[in-house]
């Protein structure tokens, strides 16, 4: 296991370098001078000249990348012209907020996905199964940004069950239950499509397990149907379930950006959106980099869990 972890960590190094290079190079897509793009249009000509010098813009691309990367390793992500603050400082506070939302969403994906797929698989081709399949079809086809608005309209504006925006109440902030209350709608909007996909794949995996001979052998030994379903079927379909849940994490990262915007959740996604509106290039780079890094790390963790569960690979 230690060997596997070490190998995976080593494999991550070139990928991380590549990711940082893509983020670095993306700012060159903007037509015009890079230093000017990074500083914004209100910056003075001397400041632009100074940055041009610092970045080594008249030196080869790889040298520029090296300068940028060494800054990055010192956690220097550049300076946000729009907020008049270092990018790293702004993002530091937002990462936790985004992770909280992601955590809630992932919990919903795993919990609801598990319950729905087990339910559907045990009622294969009965009404409950068909309804679940239909529900997942609809959920998988819903755009996050629209679902967010719809939930906001129905549950916050019409029924007034949930707050409209933010993480805490404006006047009396704090407390886990308050956070949960605020996080419910954005987490549901983020998780909906992923729940649908996890349910569909995991349902098929469970149905597949059920058709195997060893399951027939287990049944023929007179073990209660409940035990067959909830112990043997579920246990054997678990690696497939964890695998597909892990694959959904990337999707959740994308959806969370939209949820954060709709529900005004003070995370990286909302920051990214504001940076786009303000044409704040270093901030767009910083947000993209942080999201991509978190994604790479969570993929690594998902791989580890699958590996630990999968008896065949052990």
């Amino acid at each position, binding site marked *: 296991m230690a060997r596997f972890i070490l190998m995976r960590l080593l494999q991550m190094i070139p990928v991380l370098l590549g990711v940082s290079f893509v983020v670095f190079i993306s700012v060159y897509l903007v037509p015009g001078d890079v230093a000017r793009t990074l500083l914004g249009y209100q910056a003075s000509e001397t400041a632009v000249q100074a940055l041009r010098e610092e970045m080594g813009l008249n030196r080869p691309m790889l040298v520029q990348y090296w300068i940028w990367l060494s800054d990055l390793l010192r956690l220097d992500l550049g300076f946000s012209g729009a907020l008049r603050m270092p990018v790293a400082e702004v993002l530091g506070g937002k990462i936790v907020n985004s992770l909280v939302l992601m955590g809630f969403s992932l919990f919903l994906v795993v919990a609801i996905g598990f319950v729905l797929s087990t339910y559907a698989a045990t009622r294969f081709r009965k009404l409950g199964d068909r309804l679940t399949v239909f529900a997942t079809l609809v959920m998988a086809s819903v755009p996050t940004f629209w679902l967010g608005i719809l939930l906001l309209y129905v549950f916050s504006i019409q029924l007034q069950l949930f707050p409209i925006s933010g993480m805490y109440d404006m006047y009396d902030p704090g407390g886990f239950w308050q956070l949960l209350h605020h996080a419910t709608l954005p987490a549901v909007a983020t998780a909906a499509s992923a729940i649908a996909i996890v349910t569909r794949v995991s349902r098929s995996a469970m149905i597949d397990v059920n058709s195997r001979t060893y399951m027939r052998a287990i049944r023929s030994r007179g073990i209660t149907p409940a035990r067959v379903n909830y112990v043997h079927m579920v246990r054997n379909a678990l690696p497939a379930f964890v695998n597909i849940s892990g694959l959904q994490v990337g999707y959740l990262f994308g959806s969370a950006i939209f949820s954060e915007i709709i529900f005004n959740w003070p995370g990286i996604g909302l920051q990214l959106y504001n940076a*786009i509106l303000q044409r704040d290039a270093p901030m767009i780079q910083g947000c993209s980099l942080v999201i991509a890094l978190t994604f790479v790390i969570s993929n690594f963790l998902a791989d580890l869990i699958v590996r630990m569960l999968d008896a065949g690979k052990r």
Partner: protein
Amino acid sequence: MQANAEVNIGAKGPEVRAKRRSSLYFIWQGIRSDRYALAGFTILTLITLAAVFAPWLAPYSPTEAFPNLRLQGIGTEGHLLGLDHQGRDMLSRLIWGGRTTLFAGITPVVLSALIAIPLGLVAAWYARTGGLIMRTMDVLFAFPMVLLAIMLAAFMGPGMTNMIIALTVVLVPYNTRVVYVAAQQEKSSSYIEASIAAATPVRKILFVEMLPNVVSASIVYSTTVIGNIVITAAGLSFLGLGVQPPTAEWGIITSDGRQYIFNAAHISILPGLAIMLVVIGFNLLGDTLRDSLDPRTRLSLIRR
């Protein structure tokens, strides 16, 4: 081509039916035999027709404003689905918006397949170049799909063309991997060995012999991802990175309605329903296309 000729020498037998059929035949048989696919096909046909014939179907121009009827809801006289914040007819904007959204969603899928098929074939054939290509793709996989599209579109600047480029770039790695895996399998099969033995030029092996057998893998992948790309394209426009106002596009209309959610919720809710309907159509159809294009499940469609 020998395979084309009907095996029908002398006696009449069941062999007559084993003539070569086009893929379209199998796709149609697949759709016809499955009511879910038929439902998806019907939804998509209707919406595509509405989009194509928008100038004749839409009761008003998508930019024509009736300022005194601003924000009027569903069922307003003369405006079936109400009006938006500028007093533009919602039904007309939705019909015209379908054009933009469908175009912006489908084009990147087609373009990325056109890039990924040669790329995947070359990568599978030349081990060293292939390694390099696939490692580059691995880097792009490290970005969540939506994030990469947002980042590229943000830096290239808003507009339909840039959005399509961004979405194409995002899709290429996935599509290339699909083609690469399919081509890897074909590479070790005996018909390719025979071609090599017959000193067929590599270019011909790849693009004449192998191509037809990897294309279906790419098409199957494309059909499963197309709904997702329609959503992402609308999402980019929603963020202001895609198609620009006043063009009617479902993502933009949803975004426009956000500020009026308290008193005119229909502006945001209707275009989202339209997107959902299209994506349901694609998802229903995708499952069947996967079966129709897979040679192993085709037989069941002939025997019907």
